[in-house]
């Protein structure tokens, strides 16, 4: 065998030679002084280079600070995506439940969803039992609770027919500022606490009011006597449109007062990032937990201290009476939603009528 070159020796030391080649090389090296020296030197290089490379591992972290903000951004994106998924999933649940059970109120799945999103605040009025009494002003729904809807404030009778999809009151009206404005609003907006029926007969769609807003437009229809739904057209999708957003008044004054004060929080207009701004200042009393916190807010603004202890289950069962459907206008790409305290089936039917009317008018105005 010829003297192996340095590459072959390294291959041998690295175990990369075939058994046959390795055996040949070994027997050669055994009898060749020069190659023994070359092998020893190669071993030295292997060991030394390995040691030198190990010294490279003493590298401080955080040399590239740019990575940190990027990770943060990613988290935000993921959070937003997760929120969308949850919301979309929730809507799906609501719709599915609606198909199976138009009234939905008793659906456990839907109830769970609502429990997760419904604000706690109205538990109070339910506990009280006196319709419209004492609920002079409800604080703007706590940020997170807005989520969704100002839960219906309910009187002893839970018919809750008067379906009012949103809070229409003045923007973020400070709760305590308008203690007894409730009935005025009822009259003004036509959302009278009527004796309609959720599954009442189909009445012609009557526009109660149109509310153009930045990025969206709302139309409040009276679909039956005392029964209104809110139709929301949105230019671009935001979380809020997908979320159920409606309050269902029961006995006018109480619910309207609630609407009045819950205003900003109840609106789907407020971007989620505005929550802090929309929420009322935290109450002085230290909250025990989030639910209690909302209760405390209510109590603190003079609504009903007594109600603070009301169980959350009341809220969920009451909140269960509002439905929302969402869809996208195929021609304009707008996100549309329809909310009201009627069954999903009814909402679907109203949706068809609205679409028909819109098509007939040839504009977005019904």
């Amino acid at each position: 065998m010829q003297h192996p070159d340095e590459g072959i020796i390294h291959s041998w030391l690295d175990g990369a030679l075939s058994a046959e080649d390795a055996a040949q090389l070994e027997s050669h090296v055994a009898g060749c002084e020069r190659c023994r020296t070359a092998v020893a030197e190669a071993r030295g290089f292997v060991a030394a280079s390995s040691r030198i490379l190990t010294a490279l591992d003493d590298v401080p972290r955080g040399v590239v600070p740019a990575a940190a903000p990027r990770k943060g951004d990613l988290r935000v994106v993921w959070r937003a995506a997760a929120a969308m998924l949850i919301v979309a999933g929730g809507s799906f649940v609501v719709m599915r439940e609606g198909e199976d059970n138009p009234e939905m109120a008793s659906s456990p799945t839907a109830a769970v969803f609502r429990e997760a999103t419904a604000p706690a605040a109205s538990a109070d009025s339910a506990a009280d039992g006196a319709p419209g009494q004492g609920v002079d002003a409800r604080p703007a729904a706590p940020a997170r609770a807005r989520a969704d809807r100002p839960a219906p404030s309910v009187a002893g009778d839970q018919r809750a027919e008067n379906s009012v999809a949103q809070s229409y009151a003045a923007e973020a009206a400070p709760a305590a500022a308008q203690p007894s404005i409730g009935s005025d609003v009822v009259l003004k907006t036509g959302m009278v606490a009527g004796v309609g029926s959720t599954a009442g007969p189909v009445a012609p769609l009557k526009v109660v009011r149109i509310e153009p807003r930045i990025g969206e437009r709302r139309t409040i229809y009276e679909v039956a006597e005392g029964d209104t739904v809110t139709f929301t057209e949105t230019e671009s999708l935001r979380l809020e449109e997908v979320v159920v957003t409606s309050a269902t008044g029961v006995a006018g004054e109480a619910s309207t007062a609630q609407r009045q004060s819950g205003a900003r929080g109840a609106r789907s207009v407020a971007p989620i990032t505005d929550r802090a701004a929309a929420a009322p200042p935290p109450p002085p009393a230290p909250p025990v937990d989030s639910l209690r916190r909302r209760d405390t807010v209510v109590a603190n603004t003079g609504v009903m201290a007594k109600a603070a202890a009301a169980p959350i289950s009341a809220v969920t069962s009451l909140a269960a009476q509002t439905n929302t459907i969402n869809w996208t206008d195929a021609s304009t790409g707008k996100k549309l939603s329809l909310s009201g305290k009627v069954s999903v089936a009814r909402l679907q039917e109203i949706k068809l009528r609205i679409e028909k009317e819109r098509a007939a008018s040839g504009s977005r105005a019904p």
Partner: protein
Amino acid sequence: MTDVERLFRTYHAQLVRYLTRRLGDRDWAEEVAQETFIRALRQTSIENERAWLFAVATNLVRDEARKDMRRRKHLALLSEEYRDEVIEPQETTLERAQEAAMARKAVDGLAERDRLALLMREEGLDYNEIAEALELSPGSVGTTLSRARRRLVESYEALQKSREEREKNAAS
């Protein structure tokens, strides 16, 4: 689909070390390693996993290197901004820091292919894997490695010698 979790468990540490040695920055190395595993996710199957991972990581580094100048400028600005937030580990002794600096210099002095082959070998890649990752013929890997090792050691020793001479001059 490729079992990325298993790939990650098996090769992540190796890959990060390889990249850290290659790049001199552990965060950057981890970023590149992550990107490598993300790409592995998109593969339906990978024949030679380790070679594939190291090849992809190496290519990513190469792409990154093009952006390097821009990045350095950006970093210079950021380092001002983040100075207070970055906590440098203090356990590195002066001597170790000097050794690391010399090692870095010596490694950087190698030809790119020699350096990569050597770093991959240090992570346990066999000659076939190195050949595949670097698109070399398997027969040339031994030669590449022997050259890389010799040059690295000689270069490091030269740096060490000049440092010792400097210290001697400073002392006298």
